[in-house]
């Protein structure tokens, strides 16, 4: 199992969480802390960059649902980018694609976040 590394990159109303390694239920502390920091800094849209995601199990996808609920409660948007075809299929399978905007690349995600 590879550790989760989450890097926060923020400018104005959009924050990018670059996720590297594995997302499992054990990633909750890191992911929620990064999200909390982004919104505390004023981000109204949070972009999850999955381009360096190596592994995600069902605990990880459950964590994304929890994060989505937290974002909806706080009035912020959650956007995904960098998804491989495999993870796009998982978003489709779990119908997360109906609740989280997906963009092909970071530029499109940032543009969507700032509109």
């Amino acid at each position, binding site marked *: 199992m590879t550790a989760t590394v989450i890097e926060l990159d923020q400018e104005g109303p959009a924050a990018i969480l670059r996720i590297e390694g594995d997302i499992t239920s054990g990633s909750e502390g890191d992911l929620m802390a990064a999200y909390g920091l982004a919104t505390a800094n004023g981000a109204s849209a949070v972009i999850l960059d999955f381009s360096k995601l190596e592994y995600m199990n*069902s605990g990880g996808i459950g964590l994304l649902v929890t994060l989505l609920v937290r974002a909806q409660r706080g009035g912020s948007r959650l956007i995904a980018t960098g998804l491989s075809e495999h993870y796009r299929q998982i978003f489709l399978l779990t119908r997360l694609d109906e609740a989280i905007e997906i963009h092909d690349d970071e530029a499109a995600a940032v543009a969507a976040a700032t509109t």
Partner: protein
Amino acid sequence: MTAPTTDPRPEERTNRDAGNWAKPVDRLSAEGVAGAKVDSVTGKRVAGPLHGFGQLWQKTLRVPLEGSAMSPQAVIALWKEHFATFWPKGATFYAPLAGIAPGEVALLDIAPVPGSPVKLSTGIMVLYADDESFTFITPEGHALSAWITFSAHRDGDLTVAQVQALERTSDPFDELAYMLGGNRMNDRFWRDTLVNVGRAMGATDPKVITEVVCIDKRRQWRHASNVRNSATLRSVGHMLAAPVRWIARRS
């Protein structure tokens, strides 16, 4: 803001979890299940906690397997193989012929209250499965829009078996039933299941630890129309129509 990352391309990576997930399906099919009298799953879509109506709950129930020498992998292998036998009395799990594997569909009959003449006929799809866990997702019509993960892990010297549900009721009627006792019954169902699992895995006196967290107190009124798929109402209607069917058969 830094420049977009372009290396490596997502499509070029291989994913270690690739074989563990079900493939996306538009509509479910229960043709790989034998023994069930009612199939209320075929033709339905998967639902899951995003598409339910009621408050969102995360329930974690775990049982430390004291007295058992089984590894988490061995626990999960046995749990998958004999899943149906661990359910409490009054509930029937019609396992897929191919076993608990990603994408397989199972059917279930559950009594809403002990001794009830009405059986709720519904099902699940296996969303994810690996050596240490497996996850079910419910279809449209199920009383709960949920993901339920069954897993085992080491905690010190002990193996711990766990059920974790992320669930919300599917429609306003199910939410009412949940508030009037369905929630407690659901907890008891998984507690009894875990005790049975614990005993089967060799635990001497399995004691279940339960944690319940309400993740979202709001109700999703945009999904109130889920009632049109309700397995609960369909099952009640089926029972109420039994005398009519009986008379029709006699005439």
